[in-house]
């Protein structure tokens, strides 16, 4: 059988060569017509150079990385390389494993559908297949040691020309067709392939290489350093603040304006509208907004003004209810609190906006406060508020919406100012302490940036590599 196959291939190649030679001698008539790609003969390209294979770093196994130097005919030379085909050596034993695997998968599927028809308990049948499969997998490393006997190279994947790196990565799931076992000796080859798929040049074979899992992702060590440094800084400053050190925070215009706006609403006898945005209760902007809401609610309770808080997220609603309730309690007016102050509208962006816009034109609030996470609705809210003649104070960490708030509102807290505002208002030492830690980190950034720019201008990329996070 093998001889027959090789005979056919040799014959085929001969025929191809003859035919290619014929087309090498174009007739004068054919010279005018465009030559289509598949009639062009190509010389075999140069092979890829320096093929290396190693276990992929920082993963949980089941992956091998290959690297090579481009064939000189890729992007230069004849420029004839269209793609690279990566081959891996498989023992024939792998097919046996695959047969059992396929049987097991079908049996499981049939079991799911209830169409598995075997003697005895179908579950036992499946279990037996599972143990057979496991056993076969455990002998797989031995089969790989037989290289180069009883096996062959098979195509893993084709990658476009210009690629210098490929990761042969399989699933962790042993039942997947392309499962890539750990601790087996793999051998690889990379072919440089031209537009005519039969014209190709294989590389040298590389191996043996094994894949296995690592316990620690060293590529993320930079991140870990930042985590530790920043964590320590925060704890340090929080401790300092707790021990009574005086921490200065500069005034924030938007926050000062909130107090005046509440006063104005009281004078006019009109309500205050507080919008928490579209964030969830876990989003940082929303959490910062809760602190500001707490302060606003307390003052509102003191002045006995009306407060309206329509919410978008049901969880945010329930948190906001508790925040407002305890603010009324702190202000000594628990009786003024009502369940209707904070209410749920709908969890759909524009339906929510439609409803809030309706509230603005019907209740005519003296002041609108928008704090939290906002998306496209920012300008819809702010312009409607302007039409209703309300004073507007906003704050968000959504870059895209800041321009609209800046343009349409009277005061805007920009990004980090919103978070700082919650610390500024809370005046709790722990919050101020973590704000200080942020400032120190910012100062460090400025310093780093300064050094980095100078070093980079001098033509070195040392500093840039220092900040590189690999995966």
């Amino acid at each position: 059988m093998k001889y027959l196959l090789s005979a056919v291939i040799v014959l085929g190649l001969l025929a191809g060569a003859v035919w290619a030679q014929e087309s090498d001698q174009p007739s004068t008539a054919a010279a005018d017509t465009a030559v289509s790609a598949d009639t062009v003969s190509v010389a075999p390209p140069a092979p890829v150079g320096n093929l290396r294979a190693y276990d992929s770093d920082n993963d949980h196994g089941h992956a091998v990385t290959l690297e090579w130097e481009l064939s000189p005919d890729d992007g230069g030379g004849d420029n004839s390389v269209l793609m690279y085909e990566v081959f891996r050596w498989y023992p024939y034993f792998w097919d046996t494993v695959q047969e059992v695997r396929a049987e097991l998968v079908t049996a499981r599927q049939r079991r799911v559908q209830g169409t598995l028809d075997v003697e005895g308990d179908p579950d036992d049948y499946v279990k037996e297949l599972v143990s057979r499969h496991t056993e076969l997998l455990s002998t797989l490393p031995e089969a790989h040691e037989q290289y180069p006997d009883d096996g062959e190279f098979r195509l893993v994947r084709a990658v476009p020309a210009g690629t210098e790196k490929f990761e042969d990565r399989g699933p962790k799931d042993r039942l997947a067709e392309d499962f890539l076992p750990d601790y087996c000796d793999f051998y690889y080859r990379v072919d440089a392939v031209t537009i005519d798929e039969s014209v190709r040049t294989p590389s040298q074979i590389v191996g043996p290489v094994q894949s296995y899992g690592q316990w620690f992702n060293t590529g993320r060590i930079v991140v870990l350093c930042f985590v530790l440094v920043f964590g320590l800084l925060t704890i340090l400053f929080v401790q300092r603040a707790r021990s009574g050190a005086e921490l200065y925070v500069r005034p924030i215009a938007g926050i000062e304006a909130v107090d005046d706006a509440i006063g104005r609403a009281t004078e006019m006898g009109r309500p205050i509208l507080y919008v928490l945005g579209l964030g969830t209760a876990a989003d940082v902007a929303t959490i910062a907004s809760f602190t500001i809401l707490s302060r606003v609610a307390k003052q509102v309770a003191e002045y006995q003004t009306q407060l309206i808080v329509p919410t978008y997220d049901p969880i945010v609603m329930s948190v906001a209810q508790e925040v407002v309730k305890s603010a009324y309690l702190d202000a000594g007016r628990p009786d003024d609190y009502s369940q209707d102050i904070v209410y749920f509208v709908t969890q759909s962006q524009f339906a929510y906006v439609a409803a809030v816009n309706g509230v603005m034109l019907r209740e005519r609030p003296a002041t609108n406060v928008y704090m939290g996470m906002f998306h496209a609705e920012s300008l819809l809210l702010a312009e409607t508020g302007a039409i209703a003649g309300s004073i507007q104070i906003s704050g968000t960490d959504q870059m895209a919406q800041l321009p609209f708030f800046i343009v349409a509102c009277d005061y805007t807290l920009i990004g980090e100012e919103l978070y700082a505002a919650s610390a500024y208002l809370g005046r709790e030492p722990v919050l101020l302490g973590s704000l200080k830690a942020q400032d120190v980190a910012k100062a460090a950034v400025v310093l780093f940036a300064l050094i980095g720019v100078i070093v980079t201008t001098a033509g070195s990329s040392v500093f840039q590599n220092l900040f590189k996070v690999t995966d």
Partner: protein
Amino acid sequence: MRREVPLAITFFVGTLLIISVFLPPAEGLGEDFTVFFDIIAVFAFFLGGGNLVRVHLTKLSRRKEDWPYSIVTLLGFALMLVVGLFKLGNPGGIAASPTTDGSYFQSIFDSVLLPLGATMYSLLAFFVASASYRAFRAKNREATILLVAAFIILLGRTPFGMALTGFIPEQFDLFQVPNLAVWIMNFPNLAGQRAIMIGIGLGVVSMSLRLILGIERTYLGGDER
């Protein structure tokens, strides 16, 4: 129980997720947690639905202003819920996706939700114009910078930008309005964005740390209970 347990949960879950980033074998754990998160998020939808019904029934029973409109809300809610949960009119039956063409759910989506949402969003076209008219005035230095930057970008997005400044020789093509607009987007704009992003990034990191360590606890509501 009311305070300690939640703080412990936050600490445990948050720390676990941070650690899992550095340990490849623990990666799957973090994924499972995020799947859990999604399932809880769906329960929140139901919490929302319950609240919606409560709010509008209250409005209705107290005969508050505009109460008849609450009937519209409740009817719309009930109709969509029934049609969607029972997959009414779905040609593929219960196994098909709820948004299969021809199902009543998809039809209501097409003729009610889609036009309402898209029109609400499109009001922005009008509001962008009215806000530009009202706010882009050279009142002080900051406002003037805002105005000039916006104007150059607007001009650059039309063929008229090129028509007005096409006479500038090629060497100085940076000063042709469309190129100037791209330059502003790529450099000063980028600088501003980056400063804000670094600030926000630090803020988020710091807030996350405060949450995990249990320093920030406003989200748990008041202390009184």
